[in-house]
Structure formats: structure tokens, C-alpha cells
């Protein structure tokens, strides 16, 4: 019987240890391209950054060992403290707002009605806007003399606010433009997540006649949790690393109110030529974000429902 013959050829793990070792290696094989590229373009520079943070250094390299001086200097400087404050505030302003807005839009457009496709395109279109281009537009809109905000304020008889010149508002203004810029992508991700939910799950809810919000709370959000977890994590990390719009809109000012850490790193590395200090800040930022992310994975992912 041919079935019987086939049986004999079944390889068993005990007989062929090489096969099982291959199974082990296989996992690494899939990771190889990533690992090599990360190694060269991320980890190597990171180790270099850590190394440089213990030196006085410029773009070309270190020139004097400084021990912890860079750290000491940074941690004791007012400007770094205001950077931390600006960064934290910026994250708090942008992340929740972006996600809630994107979720709201995604829920609105998850209904299957006529012409919904065009709205979906509209809402995702801000992701097609480069930071540079968007910032230029927003800078224009914020302009107190000719921008649309002041025109509207004038028209409404409200005081004209110098959005970007007033330290009380600058961070808010930058956050607002950031929310706008990042909503498109968050929207698209969340919409994708929504579409992925098994429609059968809703069938029972429809028959049961539960309210929209109950359905949202009990089915949609839990089933969306992997997506939400992703977008929250990524938004956090991105918010910590925001740079482009600050460079164009405020250059960290006024009075350092928008001088987020990454911008400060950029300034030290590219303008002030103080790579040692920039590296030290980068290292601090790295570990702060890492700690937060670990925390998020530990606390957050437990609540995430995968299949």
C-alpha cells in the first residue's frame, strides 16, 4: 500500500536533529535582514551616541573625555528642564487628541453609505502632507498680520492672538498643527482596524438591539485594541521625536517654550556643534521613552485582545 510506504519516510525529530536546529535557525533567518540593517544603521550609531555622550565632541568625533560632565551639565541646566516640560506637555496635548479625533472620524466613516469613499480619502489626506509643507501652511495660517486665524478673530471681534510669538500659546499652536498632520495616518490605521473586525460579531449585537455606544464599548473598542495599542505606542514615540514642525514654526522659542528635547538635540548637534551634549540628551531621551514604552507594553498589552 503506498500510504504505508509514505509512512516510513516520515522523518522524526529524534532521528534528524539537524532539522530541528534548522527550525530554530529559521526564525532568525526571517529576522536577518532587519537585524543587519538595524545593526548598521541604528545600533551602531546608537552605541556611537552613547560613547560620544561621555566626551566633548563635534560632528567629526570626540576630542576630550568628559566623563559624566555632559549629563551633569544637562541635568542641572534650566533649559533642559524646560525642554522636558515642553516635551511632556506636547505629548499630552497631541497624543490623546490625535487618537480621539482619528477614532471619531474612523467611526463616522465606517458606516457603509454612499460616497463614503471620498470622505475616507479626505480624512486620510493629511498623511499625504509632508511635515515641511504642512508647517509652511500652518505658519501662514498662524501669521498674526495676514493669517486666517487673526482674520477670523478680527471678524469675530476677538483679540488677535500671536499664536507663535506668545510663549503661552506657542506650544498649543504647534500641537494643533501636529494633531492635524498626524490625524490622517492614525485615521487610516484605525479605519483598517475597524474593517478587520469580523462582521458576524455585530450581527448578534444588532439582533440583541444594544445601543451604539454599548456596542462601541463592548465590541468595537476591545476588538480594536491591538490597533489602538499600536497607534498609541507609535504616537507616543513619534510625539517624543517631533522635530520638523518645531523647526519651521518656532525654532524652539519663544523663551524656549517649544524647545522639546529632540529639537534641543538637533540644535546642539547641527547648529551649536556640541555633539557631546546632544548625545547625552539623546541617551536620556532614549531611556525615558524606552521606560515608558516598556511600561506601556507591560500594562497595556495585557488589556489587548488578540485572536
Amino acid at each position, binding site marked *: 500500500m503506498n500510504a504505508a510506504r509514505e509512512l516510513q519516510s516520515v522523518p522524526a525529530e529524534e532521528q534528524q536533529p539537524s532539522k530541528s536546529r534548522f527550525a*530554530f535557525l529559521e*526564525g*532568525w533567518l526571517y*529576522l536577518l*535582514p*532587519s537585524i543587519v*540593517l*538595524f545593526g548598521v*544603521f*541604528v*545600533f*551602531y550609531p*546608537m552605541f556611537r*551616541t552613547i560613547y560620544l555622550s561621555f566626551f566633548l565632541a563635534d560632528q567629526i568625533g570626540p576630542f576630550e573625555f568628559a566623563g559624566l560632565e555632559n549629563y551633569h551639565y544637562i541635568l542641572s541646566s534650566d533649559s533642559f528642564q524646560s525642554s522636558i516640560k515642553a516635551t511632556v506637555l506636547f505629548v499630552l496635548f497631541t497624543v490623546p487628541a490625535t487618537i480621539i479625533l482619528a477614532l471619531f472620524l474612523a467611526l*463616522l466613516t465606517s*458606516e457603509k*453609505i454612499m460616497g463614503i*469613499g471620498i*470622505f*475616507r480619502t479626505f*480624512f486620510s*489626506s493629511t*498623511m*499625504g*502632507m*509632508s511635515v*515641511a*509643507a*504642512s508647517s*509652511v*501652511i500652518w505658519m*501662514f*495660517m498662524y*501669521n498674526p498680520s495676514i493669517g*486666517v486665524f487673526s482674520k477670523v478673530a478680527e471678524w469675530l471681534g476677538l483679540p488677535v492672538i500671536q499664536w507663535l510669538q506668545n510663549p503661552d500659546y506657542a506650544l498649543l499652536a504647534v500641537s494643533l498643527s501636529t494633531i*492635524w498632520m498626524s490625524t490622517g*495616518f492614525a485615521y*487610516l*490605521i484605525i479605519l*483598517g482596524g475597524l*474593517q*478587520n473586525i*469580523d*462582521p458576524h460579531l455585530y450581527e448578534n449585537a444588532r439582533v440583541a438591539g444594544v445601543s451604539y455606544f454599548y456596542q462601541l464599548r463592548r465590541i468595537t473598542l476591545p476588538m480594536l485594541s*491591538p490597533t489602538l*495599542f499600536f497607534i498609541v*505606542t*507609535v504616537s507616543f514615540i513619534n510625539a517624543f*521625536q517631533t*522635530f*520638523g514642525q518645531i523647526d519651521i514654526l518656532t525654532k524652539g522659542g519663544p523663551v524656549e517654550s517649544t524647545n522639546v528635547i*529632540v529639537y534641543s*538635540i538637533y540644535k546642539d548637534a*547641527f547648529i551649536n556643534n556640541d*555633539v557631546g551634549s*546632544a*548625545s547625552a540628551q539623546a541617551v536620556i531621551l*532614549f531611556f525615558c521613552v*524606552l521606560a515608558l*514604552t516598556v511600561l506601556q507594553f507591560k500594562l497595556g498589552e495585557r488589556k489587548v485582545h488578540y485572536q
Partner: protein
Amino acid sequence: MTSTKRISLYAVLIICTAVMMFPIFYAFSISFMDGEEVLDGQLLPSSFSLTNYAEVFEKVPLLTYLINSFATSAIVMIGQLLVSSLAAFAFVFMKFKGRDFVFFLFISTMMIPWEATMVPNFMTVQSLGWTNNYVGLTIPFFALAFGTFLLRQHFKTIPKELYEASQVAGISRFRFFWNVILPVSRSSLVTLGIYSFLTNWNMYLWPLLVTNTESARTVQIGLKQLQTQEIASDWGVVMAGVVIVILPTLILLFAGQKKLQKGLTQGALK
């Protein structure tokens, strides 16, 4: 859905559209204005003159830049999709020692400020002789922790029965990856593809560093090239540049709308 509900839904949608699209509309509008109109703070141009656009094309070789941007973005997109999906697959469907650690290592790369790695990377690329061509503009971006993470999240929602069925059928892992995982993850792949395309399209500092010739440069450099530092920028021209830079991506989004929708909905499991 009742018709009142439908009408109010459309109303909300239209309001949201108006708010979300206003800045883009504004940029378009300004791109048709001349200097004086811009400084008057008008909302609409008095006439639709294309002189600003003509000027943009005169000033910088934007066509070359557009082609370069397009090519590098496409290459990076494909590279990222491949590399990230392979890695994400390993993280979800394979058990091996050190898996979680490596995953976290990957995630941690997202936290490294790009500003800190740029110069060393430039030196690496330079020593590899990759400057001034697509290799230097693309390869360093092939590995993407973000993409790996995104796909991992999606792969994790794929019913494990599919994996089991393939395992029993004796299908190799790679084939399962290629013939099952990738097709059912279309929605995430589409999303990631758009993301990587646009991110690369919008890159400025890196292309500026690794290219020295116009023939290898990308549109964002062109956009910057339109702005001056000490003397007054011509806002109409700058906005025309902005429009030219975002137009291809917007067109891509609009044209790909159908495909995108399909990709998003077809990913639906079960």
C-alpha cells in the same frame, strides 16, 4: 439607517471635511496669488494665474526631483514591506529563544532620535560609496521597527486555525507566509505601504546629506530651495512648490482610493 440619521451623518462628515481640508485648500488658494494678494491676507485669489507654478519649474529641476522621489519612495516601500513583514512573521508565528528580547530591541530602535544617528549613518554610507545614488537613499530605511510592529499587531489577529491548518497540510513556513499571511493582511500592508511611501517622499535632511547632484535629489529639497533666508520669500511661489510637492501624493491617495478601500475591507477575516 433612518433618513434623519443619514442626513445628520452627512452633515457631520461635511463639517469634518471642511475643517480637515481647510489648510490644504488654503495652500492651493495661495499658490495662485501674487505677492500683494498674499500679504493682504485674502482667502481666495482674485484670478487663477499659473505664473507661480511656472516659476517653480523654472527655478528648480522639479521634474527630475519628482522622478527621484517617486523612484526612491517606491523602492523603500517595497523594501520595507518585505523586510518588516518577514520580521513580524517571525515574531508572531515562530517560537525561538530570545524572540521577545529581539522584539523589544526592535521596538527600541523607534526611540532613538533620528537626529542622533544621522551623522554616523552618513559617514557609513559615504564609506560604502553609496552617496549620490538610490542605494544610499533607500537601503538604510529598509528595516523599519514601526512597520514590523504594525504588521505584528495585525498578524496577531489572524486566527491561529489558519496556521494550524497549514501546518497539518505540511506547508512550509515560508509558503504559509507568502500565500496566506500576506494576502489576508492586505489591509495592513496597504497602510504600511502608504506610510512608507509618504515618509520617504517627505524626507528632507537625509537626501540633502547623501546627495550632491541635482540628478539624485528629491522634491523636498526642491521645496526648501524655493525659500530664501534673508530676503523675502515669494509666498505664492513657495505655496505653489508646496502644492506641487503634495499633489502627487494627494493624487496617489485619491486615485488609489478604490484600491485602498478594497484593500482595507478585503483584509477582513472570516
